[in-house]
C-alpha cells in the first residue's frame, strides 16, 4: 500500500506534554494501578476460589451445563418418552436408549434403559434443546469424578437420582411441561 493511497485513513497520534515526555505520569499510573490491585487482593477480594474449601458460585445455575439428570413427572415416573431425539441430536453419540412399550396409558413408549457415557459427553446441551418433553436437563454439578470408565456410564437410576438430588436447587425449566422454574 502506498502512502498516497486515498483509502488510507491517517490518524494523528496524540502528542505528549512535557510531563509525559519525562515519563512521570506514566510511571506513576503504572505503579498506582498495580498498587490498587495488590491492596485489593490483600484485603481478601481476590477472585480466586479456594476450592475445595470454598464452592464456586454460579451466577445462574439454570444455564450451567454440568452432569445430566432425567426428570420425573408429578407421579414420580420418568418423563422420558423414548423418542430418541436426544440421542440423534448428540454430536458425541454418548446417549444409549432402549425403548419399550409403555405400561402407562398417556404415552406409547418409555425407556427401558437410558445410559449416558459422561466421559464421551462434551456437555454441549443439544440433548436438552432437542427433548420435546423436557425430560433430560443439564444440572450445575461440575465436580464429576470416577475411578473407572464403567463407573462413568450413568444409567437410568443414577440419572433419576441426580434429579432427586438437584430438584430443590434447580427446578425444572419449562412451566408448560410441568416445570416450576420462575
Amino acid at each position, binding site marked *: 500500500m*502506498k502512502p498516497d493511497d486515498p483509502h488510507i485513513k491517517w490518524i494523528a497520534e496524540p502528542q505528549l506534554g*512535557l510531563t509525559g*515526555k*519525562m515519563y512521570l505520569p506514566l*510511571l506513576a499510573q503504572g505503579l498506582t494501578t498495580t498498587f490498587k490491585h495488590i491492596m485489593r487482593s490483600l484485603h481478601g477480594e*481476590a477472585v*480466586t476460589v479456594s476450592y475445595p474449601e470454598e464452592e464456586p458460585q454460579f451466577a445462574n445455575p439454570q444455564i450451567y451445563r454440568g452432569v445430566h439428570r432425567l426428570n420425573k413427572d408429578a407421579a414420580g415416573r420418568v418423563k422420558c418418552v423414548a423418542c430418541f431425539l436426544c440421542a440423534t441430536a448428540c454430536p458425541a453419540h454418548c446417549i444409549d436408549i432402549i425403548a419399550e412399550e409403555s405400561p402407562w396409558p398417556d404415552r406409547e413408549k418409555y425407556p427401558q434403559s437410558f445410559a449416558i457415557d459422561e466421559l464421551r459427553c462434551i456437555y454441549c446441551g443439544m440433548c436438552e434443546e432437542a427433548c420435546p418433553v423436557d425430560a433430560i436437563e443439564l444440572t450445575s454439578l461440575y465436580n464429576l469424578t470416577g475411578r473407572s470408565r464403567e463407573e462413568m456410564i450413568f444409567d437410568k437410576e443414577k440419572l433419576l437420582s441426580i434429579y432427586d438430588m438437584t430438584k430443590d436447587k434447580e427446578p425444572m425449566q419449562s412451566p408448560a411441561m410441568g416445570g416450576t422454574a420462575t
Partner: protein
Amino acid sequence: MLEALVKIGLLVGGLMTAAAYFVLLERRMAAWTQDRIGPNRVGIPLTNIKLWGLGQPLADGLKFILKEEYTPAHVDRRLYVLAPLVILAAALATYAVIPFGSLIPSFSIGQFKVEKPIQLTVAPGVDVGMVYVFALSSIAVYGVILGGWASNSKYSFLGGLRSSAQLIAYELPMGLGILGVVLAAGSLNLNTIITAQAQQGWYAFVQPLGFVVFVVAAFAEAARLPFDLPECEQELIGGYHTEYSGMKLIIYLIAEFLHMITASFLIVILFLGGWHLPVLTGDPTATSIGWVTAILRILVLQGKIVAVILFFMWVRWSWPRFRFDQLMNLAWKIMLPLGLVNLVTLAVLYEAYHVYVGRDVTDPVGVNSGWLLLIVACSWIAFIAAWIVVALFNPLVTDNRPRRDLSLTTVDSQI
C-alpha cells in the same frame, strides 16, 4: 580464619534461603497484582498444616533436584557445565565485601572468647570494595554468554547476545552513578561509604541524579523488568538458559535472584544509608557498640533491602518491557550523559566545598551544613534540569512507520 568461615556459612546459607523465599514472595506478589491468591498450599508434609505456603520453596527445590538433568547432544559439554558455575560463583563471591550489618560487640561463650568487635563483612577492610563488586559483576556476563554459546541453540544464543550487550551497556552508567558516591565518601570501601552517609545525609537525597541513574542501571544489570530482555518469555522461550534443566537450571535461577539481591544491597548501601537510620542506630563513628544497637543496625539494613526488593517486584508488574533499540538508546543516549552530568556537577560542587570551606567533606572535623545544603540544592537543580533536557530531546523515539508527508520516492529509497 574461623571468623571468616562462620561469616561465609551464615551468608551463603542466608542468601540461598533468602533467594528461595524471595521466589515465593515474587509469586505471591504476582498473584496479588493479578487479583489472585497465589501459592498458599504447601506446608508441613503429610499433615494438613499449610503455614501460608511456606513449604513451597522446599518443594520447588526438591522438584528441581529430582528432575531429569538432560544434556542435549549438540552442546559444547565443557562450557555447558562451566557456565552455571561461573555465574553462581561470581554472584556469591560479590558478597565478600558487602556488609550485612555493622559490628557486633566482643563476647565470650565459656572458654571461647572474641576480644575485638566483629565487623559483619566477610572480608572487612577491603579498600577496593566497589571495584571488586564491579569486576565480579562483569564476570557474570561470562556465565550468560558461555551458557548461550555452549547451548548451541538459536534461542539461547539470541538470549546470550542480548544479555551480554545489555549488561555491558549498563555497566557504564552504573559506574558513573557510583563515581559520585565515591567522590563524596572519599573511599571505595562499602563500610566507609555507609559511615560517610550517616554524617553527610543519604546520597539518595544528596545526589538524586546519581541515584536515578544507578537504580535504572541496577535494574538492567539484574535483568529485571522492564529490562528483562535476556529472557523475555514471550519472545525467546527462556533466553540463555533455554537448554538447561534440573540442577543447572536452578543454579541459573538462583544466580539471577542473587543478582537482584546484590542490586538491592548496593542501592541500599550506596544511596539509602546502609544500616543508618537517624536516632535509632547510634553514633556512626563509634568503634564499639552495644548489642541493642548492633541488632538494630542489622534489622534496619535488612529491612531496607526487603523494601527495595519489594519495589523490584512491584515494578515488574507495573511497567512494560523496553524494545531492544529503546534499551540501547536509554543506555547510551540518556543514562550515559545523565551519569556524566551527575559526575561533573558533583565534582565541581565538592571542589568548591574544598576550596571555600578549606577541608574535604569527609574530614573528621565535621561537615559544614550550610555548604552541604548548597550542594544538595545544586544537585537537585541539575537533576531536574537534566531530566527536562532529556525529555525535550526525547531520544527514545525511533519512529520508522510510514508517514503521509513522505513522497513515494523517499519511501522507496528507504527500502
